[in-house]
């Protein structure tokens, strides 16, 4: 096959330029700066910096506060990933069976996807408002004195709830299209082979959804770790105090509130490594996965 080519070698470079410039300015340059400043101790007032080597990193590992936030982030990620996947799967399976009004139903379920994280967080604030929030009242009805922003566990619960709610539509869309790509005849064959709907789901539908599910797992872990920043920020109302927060939010709090640029840079480098590891893991496993035809 003849390959299309460019007459000059500058043309392809010119065409790639806009993308490369954006990546360089908004990703590589800050990332390089973060790595650089993670080895320095910054003067809080910006008057100078001292090279401290790996001290920022060793400080972090010995810091009980950091370990507490890391633990919370882990629990938070597991909860958000699990519930947003599980609920979305349930909704997708149910929506897949709906014949009448299916379009309306699906559109309504996808709507939340369009809500920006801070707005989702703000809606959470309203729902959990201390005096008139409907969810606070509901909790009160069951004897649960829900105090958002004061009680650690209550705030954490709200954070998980809003994050899950925000992520369900994305998972729902993917699961639904995954379900609809399972050949009808395979499902019908299962219908003849197995009389139990639950059995059919676990034996046939679920394994055939596994490639979709795995892809979503990675997407959801990334979401819970990084994209929940807006929700966390809105829910803790900028008053971290005793409130739960994720590692990403702590980068922001330590760097921009605490003016500890070195320590915050070290934290962001750790997160960078984490993302890198996740990406490698994802590509490795996707390569090895069987793609059903």
């Amino acid at each position, binding site marked *: 096959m003849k390959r299309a080519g460019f007459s000059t070698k500058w043309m392809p470079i010119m065409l790639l330029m806009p993308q490369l410039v954006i990546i360089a300015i908004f990703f590589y340059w800050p990332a390089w700066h973060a790595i650089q400043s993670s080895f320095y101790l910054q003067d809080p007032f910006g008057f100078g910096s001292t090279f401290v080597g790996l001290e920022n990193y060793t400080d972090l590992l010995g810091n009980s506060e950091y370990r507490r936030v890391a633990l919370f982030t882990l629990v938070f990620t597991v909860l958000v990933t699990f519930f947003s996947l599980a609920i979305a799967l349930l909704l997708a399976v149910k929506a897949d069976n709906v014949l009448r009004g299916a379009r309306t139903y699906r559109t309504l379920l996808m709507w939340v996807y369009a809500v920006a994280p801070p707005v989702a967080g703000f809606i959470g604030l309203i729902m959990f408002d201390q005096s008139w929030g409907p969810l606070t009242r509901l909790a009160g009805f069951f004897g649960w004195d829900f105090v958002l922003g004061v009680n650690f566990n209550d705030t954490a619960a709200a954070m998980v709830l809003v994050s899950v709610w925000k992520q369900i539509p994305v998972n729902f869309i993917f699961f639904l299209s995954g379900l609809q790509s399972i050949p009808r005849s*395979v499902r*019908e*064959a299962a219908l*003849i*082979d*197995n*009389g139990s709907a639950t059995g059919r789901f676990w*034996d046939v539908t679920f*394994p055939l959804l*596994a490639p979709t599910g795995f892809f979503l797992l990675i997407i959801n872990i990334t979401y819970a770790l990084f994209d929940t920043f807006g929700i966390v920020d809105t829910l803790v109302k900028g008053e971290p105090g005793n409130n739960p927060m994720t590692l990403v939010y702590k980068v922001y709090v330590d760097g921009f509130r605490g003016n500890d640029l070195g320590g915050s840079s070290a934290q962001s480098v750790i997160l960078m490594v984490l993302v890198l590891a996740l990406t490698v893991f994802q590509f490795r496993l996707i390569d090895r996965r069987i793609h059903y035809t």
Partner: protein
Amino acid sequence: MAQVTLNSVRKVYPNGVEAVTSSSFKIEDGEFVVLVGPSGCGKSTLLRMIAGLEDITEGTLEIGDRVVNNVDPADRDIAMVFQNYALYPHMTVRKNIAYGLKNRKTPADEIERKVAEAAKMLNLEEYLERKPSQLSGGQRQRVAMGRAIVRDPALFLFDEPLSNLDAKLRNQMRIEIKALQRRLGVTSIYVTHDQVEAMTMADRIIVLNGGRIEQIGTPSEIYHNPASVFVASFMGAPPMNLIDATITGGQVTLADGVAMGALQTSAQGAVKLGIRPEDVQLVSEGGVSINVELIEELGAHRLLHGKLGGQPFTIHVLKDIPVDPGAHQISVDPAAICLFDAASGMRL
């Protein structure tokens, strides 16, 4: 083992389309029945209703002595082979075959034995640990068959199982399926749009058109005594010649005024003459003249294409009769002519 009885079974889709008009027939125990018709004739819908994959709008369906209208597909004691095989892509061949048994609480050693038996019968022994994606089309088709036979069902349903295979494999599988059905003696319903499959495999053929049963009969009945113009033109390759003619007092006249001779019939007026291409003889003189325009060489025989009474006409001659294009004389045994009503298309 079971007979299948349909009593005025009808299918109307929610959008008002009537896919199958009220149909009744009975399939005897151990019989191999083929539902044949052009696409959209309702044959698959009929099969899917028998399988329980489609609701029955009206009428009753009995498998064995049991009315199964509201019985789940899994409880109808049927096994189905699908057009695109419908194998479970994540399961090995062994698991694919065993899945139906496993869900019916069959003891493990019995599953093992039955799978081994089916694999042997279908030459699948060396592929048992493979996934369907590692098999060829013919092998996948065999796995689908294996999945059906291990279940020992009362009824086999085949939904165009050979249409995804190439011509050579199709001929081979056709014979294998037929032989297998003979050996197992399980009542079978087979859907196809291929009239050759219908003719070669069926004990009885049900010809469908536009959601309606046109004719039910043995392959020979369907071929020699088609009940309508539709059946005559659908069954047989090449199809039956259908020529417009007029009968006055037993004398047959073609559309362009050519006299065909006399027929023993009480029919009068406009008719269609149905003549199988192989019932036409070339004669040296005294026949009806036809101009042969094209000759199709098929090895064992030749097909001569020409026009009779201004309409296309095909003649089948054996290989040892030399023919050239041009004017010829033909004669037709009157007993081999089928008469159809010109307006309704039904047999007279």
